[in-house]
């Protein structure tokens, strides 16, 4: 059996890369929202799927929008973006949206922006290219998300906890980047070559 777990060093490098990627995403999001927005230094961690499921458990009582987008290439997987109802309302307010469909579209746009900026930057750092599929949105309760068996296809999950702060409003969301097990081997090799350069 192959080892899909990342070592501590590999995790450190990945987190560092994510920090850089997130920085570039911040600028794009601010641009998209056409407002001065600051993004807190994100809390980035790499966890296992079981840990992911227990994270969902904690979110159980709240109402969330849940959008996913898959990306393909040497580095392939899926990103899942969670945004709570209140934050979604704040986003709608900020973008002066008129109806629910526009809000859904805006959430998908935000998902796309975050996913593509993060993965593009990450793949650039690792010298590869990815293509993106259309994102899709579902409004499901956290209890049924836990039953979504497709999460079991992934053993490693990169979690980015993010806050978008506007002058008067906050938008809070969580992004989970789920890497396919086939990509993990490739990722480990890439991370290790970066590690060697650093040492």
């Amino acid at each position: 059996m192959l080892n899909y777990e990342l070592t501590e060093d590999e995790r450190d490098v990945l987190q560092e890369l994510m920090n850089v990627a997130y920085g570039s995403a911040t600028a794009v999001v601010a641009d998209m929202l056409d407002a001065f927005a600051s993004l807190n230094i994100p809390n980035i961690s790499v966890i296992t799927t079981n840990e992911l499921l227990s994270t969902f458990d904690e979110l159980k009582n709240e109402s969330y929008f849940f959008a996913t987008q898959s990306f393909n290439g040497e580095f392939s997987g899926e990103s899942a973006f969670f945004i709570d109802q209140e934050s979604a309302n704040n986003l709608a307010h900020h973008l002066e949206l008129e109806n629910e469909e526009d809000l859904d579209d805006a959430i998908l746009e935000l998902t796309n922006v975050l996913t593509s900026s993060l993965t593009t930057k990450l793949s650039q750092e690792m010298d590869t290219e990815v293509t993106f599929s259309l994102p899709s949105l579902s409004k499901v309760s956290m209890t049924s998300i836990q039953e979504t068996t497709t999460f079991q296809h992934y053993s490693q999950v990169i979690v980015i906890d993010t806050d978008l702060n506007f002058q008067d409003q906050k938008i809070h969301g969580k992004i989970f980047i789920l890497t396919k097990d086939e990509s993990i081997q490739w990722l480990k090799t890439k991370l290790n070559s970066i590690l060697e350069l650093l040492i």
Partner: protein
Amino acid sequence: MAQNKTQQHIRTLDIAKKIVANIDNGIIVLNEDLYIYHYNKWLEHHSGLKESDILDKKLDDVFKINSKTLKRKIKTALRLQTPTFYTASTSKYLIPIKINQIKNANFEYMQQDVSIIPFDEEKGLVALILTDQTIMANTNTLLEENIQTIKELNSNLLKERETIDKKVLVLKFDSSFRIVDISQALLELLHYEKEEMIGGNFLFHEKYHMTQELQMKLVSAIQELKVFEFEENTLSAHGYEIYFKSTLVPQYSAKGTHIGFIIFRENITDAKHLAQSQEKILASSRSAAMGEMVAMIAHQWRQPLSLINTIMATLKIKKELNQLQDDSINEAFKKIQNTTTYLSDTIDDFRDYFKPNKKYSEVNLLSLFENSIFFLKEEMHQYSINYSLEIPDSIMIVTYKNELLQSIINIIKNSIDAFKDKTIKNKTIIVKAESKESHIAIIIKDNAGGISKETLKKVFEPYFSTKSKNGTGLGLYMCHTIVTQHLKGQITMHSKDDETQTLLELPHKLIKGKQ
């Protein structure tokens, strides 16, 4: 070499051009201010607009679109250098294109996924690629509708299941007699916990009182996968005896394979208890009838016995006076012999008539009443009661003869008893009968003083009697039971002033069947 490169470049351009023209997607090239740079053939065909007519025009001038959102998406795509999107599921469509497909009846406009791809960074151009997702959207809509229907059906089903569980006594077992399900209602009745029942063998789990014969029948119904109705009794966990009327039904899966059995039960414990107490009442009423028979025989015998006594006394006197001759001895013996035969016949008659033999026959109503009067003649004579029978000789009835006779005697006896201890002039009992289309009506009327309304309400109840002595209170109750249950007729009693009238309504021809 350079020429080769140029040629290759031209060839690539040519391929790209052909693909763009013929691909099954709409392609528009735009700049950030929505000015149109290219509009492919697919879009020309679908929208009915020529590229030449709209080049260098703004997209939001040509089509009604939300330009703010589109501009934002274009800006983001250019800034990010990765695609941005519209999805059909949330945004429906960007370019309004009327569709004329019968299959996609849910939508008036083509549903579109749109990818906005950064095309020329320098000039700030993007390419919009439209994909027709109408069929998919249509399928999704149908799916959504069906899911909704299924959800509703499911919730109805769950509610019904809940009701069944709470109200219906039902038990399921699989082909190897293992109990797989039992309703809450049955558990509550039996005072068992679900865990105690599930997994147990149906044939042995409950403490059954089943006859060997019933067990055999049940097992063979199970083996032959037949529907089987039966009565069973079992003990609850608390030791109460519970009677069930049960129906065994084989159960099949949706694919038609046999998966087990369901037993529907009806709690008939109360009805059983009632029937048992009714049987007790009937038994005691039979012994009451026996007592009455003895009393009637005694009445009947008094006169012939005194006749024998007189003959004996006469013989004795004649002997003492030495006047006894052979002739008178023979005559006396003959009289005694006749009288004893009469006494013996009386017993036979009573026994025959009082035995509920359920003999089904056609009888003449008039002669039946004449018979009944015969049993009561003595008593009526003693109390100076006149009686008359106004029954046409033509009325015939097919019924249980003895049971009807018993009832009639009971009713007339009741009238006679009412006359006792009363000084009434012209004591009369009249019996009338009339053949109607649907039934035969028999009226037994007396002028023995009438019955109060309160009493009338209770006359057919068991153990009700106005007679302080001798009354068992079962006579009219018996009549009621016999007439309504065995003879399938009706009996009612009315009273006005001094008169009481009992009305019997009986079918012309009793159809034998279940009792």
